Structures are given as C-alpha cells and as structure tokens.
C-alpha cells in the first residue's frame, strides 16, 4: 500500500513497510548514514552508526530514521538543530578512532566519512574527543585482502553483505570495546579463495578499510 508523508515540507509517497530512511533515500532526500543497506527493513537495520537522525512530529526526541517504519501523514524534519548537533557528535566519535590520512587512502574522495563531513559542514577533526588508534596498522590474516583497522568505522556492512551473499560469513567482528576489529580468522586459505570473485565487501566498504592485497612489488 502507498502512503504519503511530509519530509522537509516536501510530500513524498512510499510503500507502507519501508523505513523513513529508505523513503527519503528513494525520494532523493539525503540523510547521512553508514551502516544501512538499501535492502534493510526497519527491523533489520542495525542503527549502529547514529548518523541518520531525524525529527518526527509526535516523537519527543530525534530518532534513527533507518529503524522507524513510515506511517501515513508523518511529518519528518531532517535538518533541525538538534539533529545536526547529534550527527556532528556521532561523526566526531567515528573520526576519533579513524586515522585521518586521506592522501594515501584508496577511498580518498569516494569516502563516506569525507562526504558526510562535507554535507554537515564539519571538519575531519575529533575535538574534544581523544584520538584512539589501534595496532597494528594493517591486518594481513586474510589470504587476499588487507584490513586497515584505523580506517574501519565498524559499520558492519562487510560482515552483513558477506552473510547475504554466502549464507555464512567469512568476516566477523572480534574483540570488544575499543579493541573491536572486523576480520577473517580462518587458518584455511582455501576457505577464502573465492573472495576475489565476490568482492562484495570491498565494494560496500564506506571507508577503504578492506582492500585487495597488492603484490609486494606494487606496493
């Protein structure tokens, strides 16, 4: 069933079971987001990046647009002061565990963090939060991919897309808290031999944290 809602004084139509984020996305209204996949129903959305906040009439506080199902006659505001302030703080927290060294990064100019910072008119600094980086800089446990923990924002998209494509996931979160990483922890190199024919995780990674390993002489 089609329903109608108002987003930033614009009237849009959408399917009744979609999320507010998905409705806005289809209507061409941009809401910053990192951890959401277009196929996510409101109930599956991880709502982990805390970037897609919007204000909806009838809700006391800003809510994550990816996790709220649309209702007929909803009035949504995507750019209020409270929303922008939450988004800027969330971005700073993400940047506080991110090595901002864009020039050598393969995601430079295609990076979602850069895009979102630009959209919000915020820099790539993380003040007043302390920058906390991980060691080592590169994790080479995967047979054909390199993982850069200090580029990763732990959105979990690679883990989820891998599970969607293969019914089981070769990538997984490991550790806890500031030490959390995404990684590959199988010792069997054959298990990941097909990874380069799939490449879903590489394509979906918003920051260039997962990259194809180059031969030693190409580095």
């Amino acid at each position, binding site marked *: 069933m089609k329903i109608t809602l108002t987003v930033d004084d614009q009237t849009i139509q959408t399917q009744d079971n979609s999320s507010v984020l998905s409705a806005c996305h289809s209507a061409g209204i941009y809401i910053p987001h990192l951890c959401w996949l277009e196929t996510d129903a409101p109930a599956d959305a991880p709502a982990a990046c805390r970037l897609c906040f919007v204000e909806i009439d009838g809700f006391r506080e800003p809510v994550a647009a990816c996790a709220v199902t649309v209702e007929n006659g909803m009035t949504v505001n995507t750019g209020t002061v409270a929303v922008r302030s939450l988004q800027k703080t969330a971005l700073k927290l993400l940047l506080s565990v991110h090595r901002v060294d864009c020039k050598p990064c393969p995601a430079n100019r295609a990076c979602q963090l850069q895009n979102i910072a630009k959209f919000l008119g915020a820099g790539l600094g993380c003040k007043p939060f302390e920058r906390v980086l991980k060691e080592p800089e590169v994790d080479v446990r995967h047979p054909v991919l390199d993982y850069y923990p200090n580029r990763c924002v732990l959105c979990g998209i690679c883990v989820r897309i891998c599970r969607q494509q293969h019914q*089981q*996931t*070769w990538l*997984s*979160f*490991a550790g806890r808290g500031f030490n959390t990483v995404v990684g590959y922890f199988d*010792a069997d190199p054959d298990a990941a031999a097909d990874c380069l024919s799939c490449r879903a995780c590489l394509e979906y990674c918003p920051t260039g944290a997962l990259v194809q390993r180059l031969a030693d002489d190409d580095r």
Partner: protein
Amino acid sequence: MPLPLSAEDRAHLEILQKQIDVSPKGRGRLIPLLQLAQKALGYLPDEALSLVADHLAVTRSEVYGVASFYNQFRFNPPGKNPVKVCMGTACHVRGGEIILENFERKLEIREGETTDDREFSIERVACVGCCALAPVALVGETLHGHMAPSKVEGLVLRVRLEKEKAQREAAKS
C-alpha cells in the same frame, strides 16, 4: 604466533572431538561448546575453534568473533605459574600498570600470552581482595603484596630456580 599444541593438548582434543560429536547442533549451542572446549583444554587453540565451527556448520571467523568477545575465553594455554596482576582501584592508584609492564618485559610476553616453555602466563585481574597490600600480584597461588618493579625479577628467578631444583632431585632419585 600461537604456541604449538603439546602432546597433552592433542590427547585432550581427541576427547573433545568425541564429546562434540554427540552434542546437539544449532547456533545456540556455540557458547556451551566453547565452554566445553575450554574445560577440556584449558584454552581455545585454533584446532578447538575448528572442531566447534565444523560441528555447527558456521565459519571459524564467526566462532572466533563470539569467543573473543568474552573475557572467559582464552586463546593461549595457561602457564604453570599464571601471573595475575591486580588492576583494581587501589592497585591502579599504586601503580599496578607499572608492575604489569615489568612482568611483560621480564617474561618477554604481553598480557594474555604465555611463555614458550608454558611456565608463565600473564593476566590482568580485578580486585584480589587485599587492597591494603596494593599493588598486588599473584604468581601461581602465592600472593605478593607491596609489589615493586625491583621485585619482579626476583619472583620470576625464584620460580625458575625451584623448577631446576625439582628437576635435579627428580634426576637423582
């Protein structure tokens, strides 16, 4: 680098394999199986993770992901003399961090790891319950209060000497 399996570990793995073979399947059994494996071996080597992963038909990455979340699971064998350095509030204030660092430097392993001869492993623990003696460290079952960096070397040496003495006496008889 993970330590190679000992002969004892291999025997334990075989027993574990039999126990796992008769266990029920399903994702919900993951943590109970990991607990079973750790009970059998004292830690979770890659081989044990593989047994669990194969039984439940999930990838080992996923098994490792779950296991690494919990402090309960360890990936290095416990040493014969586990060194536990207290990081409770009182010990923290009196420099527990420095004591830990000294043990790490002396034994040339990091916290959570085990020496190649499996004599020592280092762990950080929360309060041991004798804050008046802060900073506190346990070596094996023995508690050492009022720890100082200068005491670390002596403690490690004492354990090693006692081991040599025991070996000499065993050789004599």
